[in-house]
């Protein structure tokens, strides 16, 4: 990204794109002026403008591009500025009209930095290769160089094994790869992109990060693109005193503090959510159906620490040690093999929500999902549906007959799915439940499986555009504030909730960023890039980008009936949850009316501007 002026019009800022045609093996570079502030900020704000220009009826078709890009602050000295975004039409998110939804997934690690330092802001992979390839991006004498190389030697390896094999070949690079799940894209629509971290390359331990949502790894698999290598010298700019102030703001804001280890006065990461939500019996158990008992407490941090060594680590140059890595204890009490990384999502979705409450078993399932390269949310939630179905139909169960808590049988299903042997699970819960004709307890909205927050607590899921808690920041509102009115929810969705997606434009970690505030983001941009972007302009650009995503959903045929929650929420409220059961059909209808009455006129107004921008481009 280069800018000609600090008091700028977006068109004075340019970004560097490389387009790789995988079918033809051709590579071209362009330096493009930004059409708007969304282009400048980057991430999905830019990639969705590309997707909007395409007519894509099937995610697995040559017309579907895979866009790999960074945010404005990726690769800068701003703390958490590590994000890479993968955007495409998703095999998983699909409208009832049969059209794929536009999606993006975000991941950390050091890949995005290397991509940017090699001289690229964006890579677009067009069409598909007839043979397995890897794309190598490196610094050339006169700019970035991108080459395609055979990748047959990587096939069949886990994501981590691929990363370590590539590390031996390219010691100064970072990697975005697919696991076996992505390779078996025909039967696995939930393949993740597995991204290398410095900790992983140094220790040899499987400490990858994942761009998981929406099956972007499966799109890579369809394209026969097995890995992307970003090779560059480290070019982290020097940290000025003003940047130090910005980073102090990042690290001390409330959003960050809750991720820091308890020993440092922090909240201990997302793990803490379990204890708080359990106080309301609102932790997903047995397919999002809390029982009102204390089974979940076996996954509380202090219980796990009795059995394992828990060590908090951070991403590359990030001061927020949010990774709770769980290690075995050796016979003499030292730190042994890495078991798994504990975050709230995988811990619950492979633990209590499958009826598995033993920490060692939960760790094994998380680890297996990671190695095979699947999205933990999509897989965990689809598995929970299968176990629920089997409990309801003991006379004719699905697959191997696994039920809640049947660890070995669940593990076998994960193995089978990740290797392409179980299309029923691999294609996600929406398709499976529709095939079976039992959709009421299939926990998805618009084809994307729900994260580990009960739908009974979050009607905001309806208006998330790229994953329930990734793209609508309302998933804790009931527990945090006790909001139960249509007015309260409509306001949250149409004002603060949608701003969650902004961090998936600029390159910062969204869950930390949410506590930063746009004033600090504005300062960070000014210090890192010299661009003066007032906070209100950032908010307006984020809002436009969100609305573009919503408009794209409508264009891809998502119908009014699809903007809803799983019907079990309305038809059979869970009596065990102590938070108010406020979501009725009437509530949802009224909420939708209020929210659309805000969003639809804005979308209509923006469509004119989008048409103008696209004709100028």
């Amino acid at each position, binding site marked *: 990204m280069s800018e000609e002026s600090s008091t700028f019009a977006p068109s004075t800022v340019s970004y560097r794109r490389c387009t790789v045609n995988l079918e033809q093996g051709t590579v071209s570079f362009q330096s493009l002026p930004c059409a708007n502030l969304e282009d400048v900020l980057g991430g999905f704000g830019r990639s969705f403008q590309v997707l909007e220009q395409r007519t894509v009826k099937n995610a697995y078709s040559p017309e579907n591009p895979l866009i790999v890009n960074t945010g404005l602050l990726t690769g800068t000295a701003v703390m958490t500025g590590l994000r890479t975004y993968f955007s495409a039409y998703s095999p998983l998110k699909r409208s009832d009209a049969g059209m794929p939804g536009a999606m993006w997934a975000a991941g950390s690690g050091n890949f995005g930095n290397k991509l940017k330092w090699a001289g690229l802001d964006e890579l677009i992979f067009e069409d598909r290769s007839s043979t397995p390839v890897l794309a190598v991006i490196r610094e050339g004498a006169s700019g970035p160089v991108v080459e395609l190389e055979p990748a047959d030697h990587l096939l069949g390896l886990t994501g981590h094994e691929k990363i370590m094999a590539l590390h031996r070949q390219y010691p100064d690079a970072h990697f975005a790869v697919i696991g076996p799940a992505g390779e078996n894209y025909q039967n696995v629509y939930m393949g993740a992109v597995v991204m290398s971290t410095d900790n992983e390359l140094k220790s040899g331990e499987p400490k990858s990060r994942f761009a998981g949502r929406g099956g972007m790894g499966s799109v890579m698999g369809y394209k026969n693109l097995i890995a992307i290598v970003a090779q560059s010298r480290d070019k982290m700019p020097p940290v000025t005193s003003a940047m130090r102030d910005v980073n102090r703001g990042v690290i001390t804001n*409330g*959003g960050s*503090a809750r991720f820091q280890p308890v020993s440092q006065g922090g909240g201990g990461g*997302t793990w*803490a959510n379990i*204890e*708080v939500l359990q106080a309301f019996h609102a932790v997903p158990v047995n397919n999002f159906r809390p029982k009102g008992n204390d089974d979940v407490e076996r996954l509380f941090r202090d219980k796990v620490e009795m059995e394992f060594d828990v060590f908090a680590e951070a991403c590359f140059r990030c001061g927020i040690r949010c990774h709770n890595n769980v290690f075995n204890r050796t016979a003499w009490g030292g730190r042994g093999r890495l078991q798994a990384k504990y*975050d709230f999502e995988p811990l619950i979705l492979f633990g209590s929500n499958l009826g598995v409450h033993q920490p060692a078993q939960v760790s094994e399932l998380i680890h297996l999902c990671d190695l095979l390269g699947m999205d933990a949310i999509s897989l965990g939630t689809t598995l929970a549906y299968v176990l629920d179905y089997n409990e309801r139909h003991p006379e004719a169960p699905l697959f191997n007959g696994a039920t809640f808590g049947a660890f070995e049988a669940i593990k076998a299903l994960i193995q089978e799915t990740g290797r392409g042997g179980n299309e029923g699970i691999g294609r996600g819960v929406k398709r499976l439940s529709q095939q079976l004709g039992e959709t009421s307890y299939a926990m998805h909205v618009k084809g994307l499986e729900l994260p580990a927050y009960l739908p009974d607590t979050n009607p905001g899921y309806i208006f998330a555009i790229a994953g329930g808690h990734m793209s609508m920041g309302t998933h804790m509102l009931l527990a945090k504030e*006790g909001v139960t009115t249509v007015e309260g929810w409509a306001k949250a969705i149409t004002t603060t909730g949608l701003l969650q997606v902004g961090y998936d434009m600029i390159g910062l970690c969204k869950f930390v960023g949410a506590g930063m505030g746009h004033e600090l983001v504005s300062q960070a941009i000014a210090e890192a890039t010299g661009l003066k972007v007032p906070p209100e302009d950032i908010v307006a650009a984020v809002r436009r980008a969100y609305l573009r995503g919503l408009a794209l959903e409508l264009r891809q045929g998502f119908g009014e009936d699809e903007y809803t929650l799983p019907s079990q929420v309305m038809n059979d409220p869970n009596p065990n949850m102590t938070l108010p059961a406020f979501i009725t059909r009437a509530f949802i209808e009224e909420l939708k009316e209020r929210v659309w009455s805000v969003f639809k006129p804005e979308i209509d107004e923006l469509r004119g501007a989008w048409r103008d921008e696209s004709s100028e481009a």
Partner: protein
Amino acid sequence: MQVTVKLFASLRYRWFEEETRQFPDGSTLLEVVDRIGIPKKELGITLINGSHASLQDVVLDGDVVALMPHIGGG
């Protein structure tokens, strides 16, 4: 007056899990929190008898107060 205070997650690791203590009549939730010594910025959710409450709310004899840290997604 006697009030039972329950702490959750990181707060219980650093202070206590549950205690019943004496507080002056008419104390607000903020005064209860101050007496325990928990910095206000560390509080995410506050409940009195299971209902969401603000720090300005007055606590009554026999009430059960629940204090929770900030929580967030991911």
